[in-house]
């Protein structure tokens, strides 16, 4: 079931501390491995690469020695309220879950019209331009928990939805309904060597992520559009914040 409105109850979200991110890319690689993301034969053309979590590199535009560089890991923003991609999909192959608010993708229902790819301003959605042909032997390294996609469908970061299902199954087997903060962690969060990424229930005051999201240093990408992303970023550096959104000079950045 999808809910075109703000998520209530449980709302899974992420906070990424950009002051801790070194740009190593481990999160991106962990995601590719966990989710059986296909690697193209020719990866030189990045406009067709599938990177559910893409690490952007930005700088402050100043010459040496004032140059500053930052890295922005960008998973799917898992927009809340009314994700731009969900309302445009003709066969309802993408939907926002009522419980948890994760924007899920049904690869077997996707007809590949790419309307959602056009709608997303963050470019988190990737279309399979090629057939997924895994080199011999490499298919043995695939994770059995995530289905491989086929040519002609769109895929994107799912907050490692399969891990949520596994955590819920485990909890059920142990006779409880609630899962604890540490039981459901996406692969990127787990892999980050500096622990820059925090994940959990944004509406649960006990979860670290809900406290961090309320920090004065927290911001989201393209806030003024009203997409209500569930991925927050933390930084004390103003110049990074200035590149998170569009604003007119006279208006200034919305804080």
């Amino acid at each position, binding site marked *: 079931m999808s809910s*075109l409105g703000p998520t209530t109850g449980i709302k899974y979200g992420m906070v990424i501390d950009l002051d801790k991110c070194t740009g190593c890319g481990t999160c991106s690689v962990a995601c590719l491995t966990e989710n059986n993301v296909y690697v193209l034969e020719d990866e030189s*053309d990045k*406009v*067709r690469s599938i990177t559910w979590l893409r690490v*952007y590199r*930005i700088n402050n535009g100043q010459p040496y020695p004032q140059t500053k560089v930052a890295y*922005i890991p960008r998973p799917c923003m898992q927009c809340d309220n009314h994700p*731009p991609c969900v*309302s*445009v*999909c*003709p*066969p*309802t*192959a993408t939907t926002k879950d009522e419980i948890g608010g994760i924007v899920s993708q049904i690869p077997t*229902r*996707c*007809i*590949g*019209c*790419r*309307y959602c*790819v*056009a*709608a*997303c*301003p*963050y*470019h988190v*959605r*990737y*279309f*399979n*331009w*090629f*057939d997924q042909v895994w080199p011999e032997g490499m298919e043995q390294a695939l994770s059995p928990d995530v289905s491989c996609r*086929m*040519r*002609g*469908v*769109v895929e994107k970061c799912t907050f490692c939805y399969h891990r949520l299902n596994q955590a819920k199954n485990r909890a059920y087997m142990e006779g409880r309904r609630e899962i604890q903060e540490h039981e459901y962690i996406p692969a990127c969060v787990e892999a980050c060597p500096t622990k820059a990424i925090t994940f959990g229930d944004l509406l649960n005051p006990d979860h670290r992520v809900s406290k961090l999201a309320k920090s004065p240093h927290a911001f989201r*990408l*393209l806030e*003024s*559009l*009203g*997409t209500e992303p569930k991925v927050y970023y933390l930084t004390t550096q103003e110049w990074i914040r200035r*590149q*998170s*959104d*569009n*604003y*007119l000079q006279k*208006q200034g950045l*919305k804080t």
Partner: protein
Amino acid sequence: MDRKEIGEVVNEIKFVVDRWRKRPGSFAIDSSLMPEGVERCGLAKFSGWMLFCIALCAWGLVSAFLCLWLGLNQTGMNDYFPFGLWIVFDLAVIALGAGAFFTGFLTYILRKHELKAIINCAVIVGFICYSGAILMLGVDIGQPIRGWFGFWHANVHSMLTEVMFCITTYLIVLTIEYVPLIFENRKLDRIPELHLFGHNLHSIMIVFAGVGTFLSFFHQGSLGGMYGVLYARPFAYRTGFMIWPWTFFLFVFSAIASGPAFTALITYITQKVSGKQLVNRSVLSLMGKIAGGLLAAYMVVKIADTIYWATVTAPSMGQSLWDFYRDGPYGIWLMVAELGIFGIVPAVILLIPKARENDAWLISACAMNCIGIVLNRFVFVVQAMAIPVLPFEKFLGYLPTWQEWGISFGMVGYGLIVFSLSYRYLPVFPQENDLNYAQGGPR
């Protein structure tokens, strides 16, 4: 064969020989398939022309095969340009094919009977445009076999769902409007069942014209709505009336402004190629006047919408007009071209009665009208995708591959074949006989 049938065959031979004697240049072996009393070029020449069209179709088929076999990596599209040449083509031909429903509306609902001279042509052009667009979409989507999911698992919130429903339904309407014309072929008309069927469909054509108008209004609009609802893409997004963004109404408006112009253009080209007058000159002027009036009105609302979007909507999303043009291959000249050179100029020309009476002015203005609408579709499909929303993303460009051009030209070839066959063997232009052979010649 009995006496009666032998008599018929003899009459046929007499007819053909008589024709050949009276007008030697018009002899064609397949004359008996042609409408009564018309002249067409020789079959050899026509076959040569068909070969050229078939070559275009072959290019299209090879391209389609490659895309279906190897995947959409055969195109120039990528994750930053999910829509490319094909979608521009689709939107453009659907807008230009709007002549079918609008002429039908004017002829049958508003009872402008003088347009009966051109309604058949408009219907054929519409049929070609819509069937071609659907064929193209069959290759464009990543999983064509799953295309029916849009109907089975329909998402009521999506504009594209509405487009799918209406376009397929309207193609059925167009087929119903085209079939009686096919049954008017001299040979087919002899079969009583087909004659009756065609005749009965004719008598209730007003129902189909009404249904066609209703469906067309919605899908022309929804195609515009598709871009106007993208609230996270400031270049495309528009506010609107309830759930319908202003682009919904703008696309309907531009479609009915360019549809009649396109039909007039096709008629004029057919006249030039065949060397005959096929409709009263006043019909072409009337189509020009309708197109001109609608284009002028459209330009007023379009410019108003552009100003409002540039000064209110986009700034509310943190972007000024120049943010969209500060970099990248798609410059402000596109807006000048779309609104000025191919917008206001043809509207003004078509509104001047003396200009409409002059072939060169009328046809140039019609062509410019159509080009303006194609530019409008290009701007929303390709330029919108080129413009980054995230401040640290780049402006990008897009170039179609030969496979994409192949399918586009293949569709043109398909259209040329359908139209040429229709013109040769079907009574497309009811005024043709009166305008050309009134002095004599067999009937």
